[in-house]
């Protein structure tokens, strides 16, 4: 029996990714034409001119950060399982390897967006701290961390290191394919790369970077749970994206060593980390709700509002909990549903959308609140969705490209057999 291990990009997938990227590009061009991203924002002028730029940059930042963290988290998955010497993902490990390849494009894209906002755009509603002339006392105290130079240095270093580690790992993994069977030097090297990457990831995504990229949007507010919360969100979305690609490849006849057991285990990850995300979400919410300090509750008032005066994001806030907690909890709890291709596909789509929505409500409410209630509109949501479609198309396109570049099974890896006979 010949192994179908060299992926060829089907025409349908290509067409879809081009269509989605087309939607994204169109949205982007419309934004550049109508939202005037490089002017306005200064002064106290309100109206379409004043907050157009803010909306444009918010949509771009929301999507570029979200999709970058999602593809990065699939490399985190590889490293975590490699370092734990887990053999079971080997049957499909080329899939997260390909997804994380998207970092090579999404990383620079995110950096361009973030640095263009910080250095070129005149708008300062998203990052108050970038306007050094108008800092209040609190932001002055934070200015050692929150300033454009340090922002640039940290962002570039972090994204550069992720890409470097990912490409190094991939090179090692591909070299292993060509080496003889039984050569374990590649395996030990991959452990070392994984360990080094996890330290880098811990110091960036798990701590400093979400403070800088996202929490500083509400610059006066702070939460110690925030980075973990952001990480959990991107991580569970990353697992779901991996599930989508695995199910897709399986359905068109690839990945023949992947069976119900592997799908079940990825499903367990989706289930478990949805709960983990909820745990962090709730811990952040409850502590702030309980202690009731004005400087902390501000964040939630911007989103849900106060009793009798619901905030503009209340619906999204509640929907977020329903589809990111209740739906995975109830639907993925049963063993059978984690082994059902239709249900896991549906849930993966729901979870990715849910966490995209979660990032939306991390980024958007702060600046919109400041721009006034009239600025909050369904149109901004749709605009963000359009840009998001573009990024999704890009992720699909890049993943398909990287999948087609190498065989779908890392056949010389010492743990491959463990994955083939995997049993939950």
């Amino acid at each position, binding site marked *: 029996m010949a192994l179908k291990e060299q992926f060829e990009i089907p025409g349908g997938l290509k067409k879809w990714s081009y269509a989605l990227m087309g939607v994204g590009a169109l949205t982007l061009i419309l934004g550049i034409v109508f939202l005037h991203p490089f002017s306005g924002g200064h002064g106290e002028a309100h109206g379409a001119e004043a907050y157009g730029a803010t909306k444009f940059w918010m949509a771009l930042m929301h999507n570029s950060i979200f999709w970058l963290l999602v593809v990065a988290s699939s490399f985190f998955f590889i490293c975590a399982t490699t370092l734990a010497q887990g053999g079971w993902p080997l049957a499909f490990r080329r899939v997260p390897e390909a997804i994380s390849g998207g970092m090579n494009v999404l990383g620079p894209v995110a950096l361009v967006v973030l640095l263009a906002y910080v250095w070129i755009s005149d708008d300062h509603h998203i990052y108050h701290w970038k306007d050094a002339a108008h800092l209040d006392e609190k932001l002055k105290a934070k200015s050692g961390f929150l300033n454009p130079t340090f922002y640039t240095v940290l962002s570039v270093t972090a994204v550069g290191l992720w890409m470097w580690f990912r490409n190094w790992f991939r090179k090692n993994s591909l070299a292993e394919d060509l080496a003889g069977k039984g050569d374990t030097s590649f395996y030990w090297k991959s452990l070392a790369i994984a360990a080094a990457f996890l330290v880098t990831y811990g110091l960036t995504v798990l701590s400093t970077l979400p403070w800088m990229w996202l929490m500083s949007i509400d610059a006066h507010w702070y939460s110690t749970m925030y980075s973990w919360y952001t990480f959990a969100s991107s991580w569970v979305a990353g697992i779901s994206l991996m599930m989508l690609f695995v199910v897709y490849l399986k359905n068109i006849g690839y990945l023949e060593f992947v069976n119900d057991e592997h799908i079940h285990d990825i499903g367990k990850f989706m289930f478990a980390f949805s709960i983990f995300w909820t745990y962090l979400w*709730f811990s952040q919410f409850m502590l702030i709700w*309980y202690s009731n300090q004005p400087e902390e509750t501000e964040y939630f008032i911007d989103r849900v509002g106060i009793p009798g005066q619901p905030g503009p994001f209340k619906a999204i806030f509640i929907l977020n909990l329903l589809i990111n907690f209740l739906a995975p909890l109830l639907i993925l709890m049963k*063993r059978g549903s984690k082994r059902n291709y239709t249900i896991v596909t549906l849930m993966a789509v729901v979870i990715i959308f849910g966490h995209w929505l979660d990032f939306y409500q991390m980024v958007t409410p702060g600046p919109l609140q400041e721009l006034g209630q009239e600025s909050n509109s369904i149109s901004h949501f749709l605009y963000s969705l359009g840009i998001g479609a573009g990024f999704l198309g890009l992720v699909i396109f890049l993943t398909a490209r990287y999948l087609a570049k190498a065989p779908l099974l890392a056949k010389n890896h010492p743990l491959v057999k463990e994955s083939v006979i995997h049993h939950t």
Partner: protein
Amino acid sequence: MSVKKFVVGCFDDEKTLFPAVKNTRKAGYKIHDVYTPFPIHGLDHAMGLRDTSLHTAGFIYGMTGTTTALTFMSWVFTKDWPLNIGGKPNLPLPAFIPIVFELTVLCAAVGMVLTFCYLCQLAPFVRRDHFHLRATDDLFVMPIEITEKTNAEEVKAFFKSAGAVEVFEKSAETGWWLGRYDSTKKAFEKEEEIVTA
């Protein structure tokens, strides 16, 4: 409970045990149980055991804990003894959630452990026959029940062909009885006919 007759096959390797279990089922013999020194992945599947309903029981215990915690705290803080704590409402759901969660976990965990012990008939001083002492050490032991339809000699021959290192006939109590492993010798005193393969 009752004393039944068994033919016991002992294997010294997982690799011979698995095909033996499959062939036993194919031959139509009734596997009483398989005793192994450590848990073996996939053995339950090979033996054709159905999934236990332990997880359903766990869900029910969990829900019991959830409802107990929610109803009790709601009753205390709204009806029995309302307290104003930091200006929070009398029914502060976020503050209840950790306690609700803890009680859910507690009820589910304790309930499932007890149910598990009940299903396996594990309890202090409850004894069962394990067919072979080395089943707790380095031997995989599979007893087959001898009914009027099965021929003991045929089963013995079958075991030997399947790669058993030791085959013997044994009459054993299938239920449990009270006693202590360290003070009684009842289990080890039975007549055993040992045939070495």
